C-alpha cells in the first residue's frame, strides 16, 4: 500500500497551471474534547464536504470555492432526494449509493441496532474547498458549532469527499 500523496500532487498541478505555491495549512497539534459518554447514549451528527443537498434546496455550485454555506439534511431523509454537485471528486459511486460519502442510512441502521444512541435530527453538508481560513475559523465553523449544540449533539462524524 502506498497512499496517494494528494498534497504533493495538488501543489504540482497548481504550479503547472501557473499559480504560486499554495500554502497548505499544516497544524502542529490536534484539538481534543474527551469522549466520556457511552456511545449507546450518544446523539451523533454527520458532517460531509461532498456538496450534497436536498432536491428541494438550492444546489451547491459544483465549482464552488470559499462557499461558506451549509445544507441541513434531516435524519430521516429519503436518499433519493439527495443530489451531489461537486467538481472535485469522482462521485459516480456516491450517486449510486450516497452512503459511500454520506452514510446516513448506515447511521440509521446503527441507531436501530442500539450501537449509537441516535442520529441527530439534522446532519450537515458543505463544499469544502475553503481557502479563507480566517473566515472558516471565525464564522463558518462557529456557526456549525452553534447548530450542533442547539441540537444537543454529543459527537460529530466528519467525512470529507
Amino acid at each position: 500500500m502506498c497512499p496517494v500523496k494528494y498534497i504533493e500532487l495538488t501543489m504540482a498541478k497548481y504550479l503547472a497551471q501557473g499559480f504560486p505555491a499554495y500554502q497548505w495549512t499544516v497544524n502542529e497539534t490536534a484539538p481534543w474534547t474527551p469522549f466520556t459518554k457511552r456511545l449507546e447514549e450518544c446523539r451523533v451528527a454527520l458532517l460531509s464536504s461532498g456538496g450534497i443537498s436536498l432536491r428541494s434546496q438550492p444546489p451547491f455550485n459544483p465549482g464552488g470555492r470559499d462557499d461558506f454555506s451549509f445544507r441541513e439534511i434531516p435524519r430521516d431523509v429519503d436518499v433519493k432526494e439527495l443530489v451531489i454537485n461537486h467538481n472535485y471528486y469522482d462521485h459516480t459511486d456516491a450517486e449510486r449509493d450516497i452512503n459511500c460519502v454520506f452514510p446516513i442510512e448506515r447511521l440509521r441502521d446503527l441507531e436501530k441496532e442500539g450501537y449509537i444512541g441516535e442520529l441527530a435530527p439534522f446532519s450537515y453538508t458543505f463544499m469544502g474547498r475553503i481557502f479563507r481560513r480566517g473566515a472558516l475559523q471565525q464564522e463558518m465553523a462557529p456557526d456549525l458549532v452553534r447548530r450542533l449544540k442547539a441540537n444537543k449533539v454529543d459527537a460529530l462524524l466528519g467525512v470529507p469527499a
Partner: protein
Amino acid sequence: MVRVVGQAGIPTIYTGSARDIIEAVKPSRAVFVNFPLGHETGKPFDKPLQIAILKAAFETLKSAKLPGTIVDLPYQWRDGDDSWEKDALKRGEWVKSV
C-alpha cells in the same frame, strides 16, 4: 471544520481517504480508509463494509487517547491490486483547472 468543533467541546471522529491530508489537518481522531476519493465510508451497496468502517470509526472515538490519533483500516479497494493508486496519480481529477 472538525478541528473547531473538537475545540468547542464536541468530540469528533474523521474518516478520510487522503492520509497526507489527515496528517496535515490533524483532527482529534481519524480513521484512514485507503480507497479512492469519494469512497471514504465504503464501496457502493456494500452494506457490511460500510457498517464496518463506521464501527471502526466509532471504536476509535471511544478508545483514542492521544489527540491526532490516526488508525489505518485494513480494507483494500481491490484485493491484491494497488493499481488504482497509480490511476489516481495520473488522473488528478480532484484538481480541475481553478
